[in-house]
């Protein structure tokens, strides 16, 4: 017997400027089921949801291929309001609520119930008065449907975060004819008890026949509430499974997948790594970086190794280098070759020979309006007073020397540009990354930290950047700490990989450990990782 699907997306493909982000993906959801949509960052989950909601970003970039059926009938959704007409709603990760409005007003905003007045008879519907009583009734009903016990007349501003989420859900439920609700990582901002509560509510909603698409990274939550799941990986459809037929380990394996592509050719390895020769030792390290909080991490990085730090976005891996460099407030001790860093002092890490290539290339990594040359030499000039000629008490910029050095770097890293005077902002992503790398290398560091070195750059440049990192490590003995969301990258380069989850160290793995182990560590299930809590 053929199953009836509420939503059936088949063979969906999407291209952004020649970059295929979805390759023939299927997604089927039955009425009243909780369907988990899983995948790493960049697997294509958001793009798929954007397609479902007919977001402008999809249609302004050439639409998509494939078919979408709702209730067995082909549906054309090319604008967000059409998705609403089809009964599809979304609970956003960041709350779309108006703080100064009451719960009722927030639930009803845009869909107010109104009564005609004298003025409105002449001047149209916008001047009708609000029927607060029936609005309040509706709001109460929606709230009680999800089992939430708050007064509908309080202002949203004072509510705890978890409640805001529930108000948002109530708003979606209140829409008439809602058939499908999408929860985009709803538990990310909630406390544990709030999250449990939310999962309960999801079950309640599903029992009323509304289907739910549940986007999350948390395997335990999926196991707890979902009926079935779809796994995406690198824009490809991996599997659709029923929860009862699968296990945590299998899901983890499906998410990570064995990727055979080899990013870096083998190079001769004559390094001797020793646990006694520590380049950087991090103890009890906390970083207050919004969105990437680090909550107590201990790491020892051996001299001469390539050490990887992985994990999902928002789990704190990016916070580590930012804390070390003093860019965000941090606590704990960081020792570099036995010397303790003064974390409060900006630039102290640089003075200790640590160079950092930021994850935010355009925001932090470059002076976009300045020349390549200035970008490359800036840090070295400020920290080490290279490229400076002294005339009396004045320290003037030595542009001749800077130009020579920039030309060397351009040649060495194969930066494609019209010359050292071209502005950094006009370069392609890959070449910008090379400029960032050149700037870091110009201070002649002992330890190089690179964050997301291949984000947003094409495959050719990617290979070149990664190979150059390995070369630096092997030939110059440079200790490299590489922070990346791309597990493949980490596994093809690093000697050891620390997986960070929820701001803490989940586990330190070897590149050839199994996919399941990586998957479990990334999902924050620290089963066999005793002593790392």
């Amino acid at each position, binding site marked *: 017997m053929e199953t009836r699907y509420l939503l059936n997306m088949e063979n969906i493909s999407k291209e952004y400027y020649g970059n295929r982000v979805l390759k023939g993906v299927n997604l089927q959801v039955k009425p009243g089921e909780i369907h988990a949509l899983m995948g790493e960052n960049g697997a294509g989950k958001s793009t798929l949801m954007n397609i479902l909601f007919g977001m402008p970003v999809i249609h302004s970039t050439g639409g998509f291929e494939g078919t979408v059926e709702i209730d067995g009938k082909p549906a054309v959704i090319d604008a967000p309001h059409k998705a609403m007409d089809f009964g599809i709603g979304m609970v956003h990760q960041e709350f779309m609520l108006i703080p100064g409005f009451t719960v009722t007003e927030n639930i009803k905003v845009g869909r107010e119930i109104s009564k005609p007045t004298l003025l409105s008879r002449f001047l149209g519907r916008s001047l009708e008065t609000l029927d607060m009583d029936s609005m309040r009734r509706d709001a109460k009903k929606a709230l009680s449907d999800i089992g939430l016990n708050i007064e509908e007349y309080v202002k949203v501003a004072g509510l705890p975060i978890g409640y805001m989420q529930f108000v948002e859900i109530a708003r979606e439920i209140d829409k008439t004819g809602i058939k499908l609700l999408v929860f985009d990582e709803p538990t990310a901002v909630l406390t544990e008890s709030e999250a449990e509560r939310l999962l309960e509510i999801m079950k309640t909603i599903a029992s009323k026949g509304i289907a739910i698409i549940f986007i999350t990274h948390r395997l335990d939550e999926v196991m707890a509430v979902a009926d079935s799941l779809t796994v995406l990986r690198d824009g490809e459809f991996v599997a659709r499974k029923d929860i009862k037929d699968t296990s945590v380990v299998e899901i983890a394996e499906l998410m990570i997948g064995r990727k055979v592509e080899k990013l870096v050719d083998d190079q001769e390895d004559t390094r001797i790594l020793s646990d006694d020769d520590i380049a950087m030792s991090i103890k009890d390290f906390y970083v207050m970086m919004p969105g990437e909080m680090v909550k107590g991490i201990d790491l020892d990085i051996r001299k001469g190794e390539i050490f990887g730090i992985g994990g999902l976005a928002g789990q704190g891996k990016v916070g580590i280098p930012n804390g070390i*460099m003093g860019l965000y407030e941090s606590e704990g001790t960081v020792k570099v070759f036995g010397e303790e860093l003064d974390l409060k002092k900006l630039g102290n890490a640089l003075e200790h020979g640590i160079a950092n290539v930021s994850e935010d290339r355009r*925001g932090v990594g470059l002076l976009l309006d300045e020349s390549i040359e200035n970008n490359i030499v800036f840090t070295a000039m400020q920290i080490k007073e290279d490229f400076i000629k002294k005339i009396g008490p004045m320290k003037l*910029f030595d542009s001749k020397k800077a130009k020579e050095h920039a030309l060397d770097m351009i040649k060495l890293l194969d930066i494609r540009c019209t010359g050292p005077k071209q502005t950094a902002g006009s370069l392609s992503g890959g070449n910008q990354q090379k400029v960032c790398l050149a700037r870091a290398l110009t201070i002649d560091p002992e330890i190089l930290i690179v964050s997301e070195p291949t984000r947003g750059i094409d495959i050719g440049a990617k290979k070149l950047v990664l190979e150059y990192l390995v070369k630096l490590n092997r030939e110059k003995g440079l200790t490299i700490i590489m922070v990346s969301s791309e597990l493949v990258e980490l596994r093809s380069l690093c000697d050891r990989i620390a997986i960070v989850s929820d701001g803490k160290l989940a586990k330190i793995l070897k590149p050839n450990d199994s996919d399941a182990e990586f998957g479990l560590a990334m999902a924050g299930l620290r089963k066999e990782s005793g002593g790392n809590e």
Partner: protein
Amino acid sequence: MSERLKSIYDSIGLPRLIIVGFFLTLLAAAAPLGLNVSSLMGDAIRRWAMYGILVLAMVPAVQSGIGLNFGISLGIVAGLLGATLAIELGIGNPWLSILFAMLVGLAIGSVFGIGYGMLLNRVKGSEMTVSTYVGFSVIAFMNMIWLSLPYKSGELIWPLGGQGMRTTISLESSFGGVFNNFLAFTIGDPVTGLSIPTGLILFFLLTCFLVGVFMKSKLGMAMSAAGSNPAFTRSSGINVDKMRILGTAVSTALASIGIITYAQSYGFLQLYNAPLMMGFHSVAAVLIGGASINKAKISHVIIGAFLFQGILAVALPVANKVLPEGNLSDVIRIIISNGIILYALSKTKGGSK
């Protein structure tokens, strides 16, 4: 060829072409109206150099990231304090007198600038609004101070009453015209010819050069970086707030030098409300020169000061001829000067960072 033309056009920009066109039109109109073009030009050149340093004060401010410094009045009053002190002490030698005035102005201006910079660091994102009000309020505050400073020199205080300073103070016995007359010469007829205030121009260009050197120094480059990308600058271990304070202080100190240069050329010190709008004029000039809220170069200052002051110098006599009826020319003066400011402000590219 058209590619080349287009790139030249792009680098000049439409607003500047329009302003240059307006200036040339005015000049062309001057001769048929019976005005003396060479004396008008002489006037334009003198005003260019005398205002130039006040415009130059915008460069460190913009480059350090605080945006256009409407609050240079702070530096202006510092300069005025220096100048009045020089007169009060009765330093007879004009060169010594102006040197003393400038040193005192620099010192007070730097101190004011540091405090002002600290204030601006607390209002990141709305520096330009705050600086406008700082500029206005310091003038109001100084109005009270001018009235109550215990100066004794007869040149400074009202002849009757014996207390409180005059609104306009002659510099004849101190440093009036000391730069203007240095190596000055006249092209053509001594009365109607084109007179060149060599010393003034040299001093203006020298100041530009010094600021240019500073911008190319280690400190200056760190300051510019702080303005163009604070996050980048922090990641290179530089304290962005300190750089912004530095930029503000240099800007304020330059304004104090600027007002003294201005006053020596004008021949009078103007106290009280006179400097109220000077911040706006400097902002307008640098914008016309091609600067934006995020980027200003020395070349923008030199070009902008010339165009803005040139138009004012030429437009008024022309307007007077076209509309000889009494008051109207003064109205025209206000319309033109504020019109240029409005136009320049409306043509700025990019939002504040």
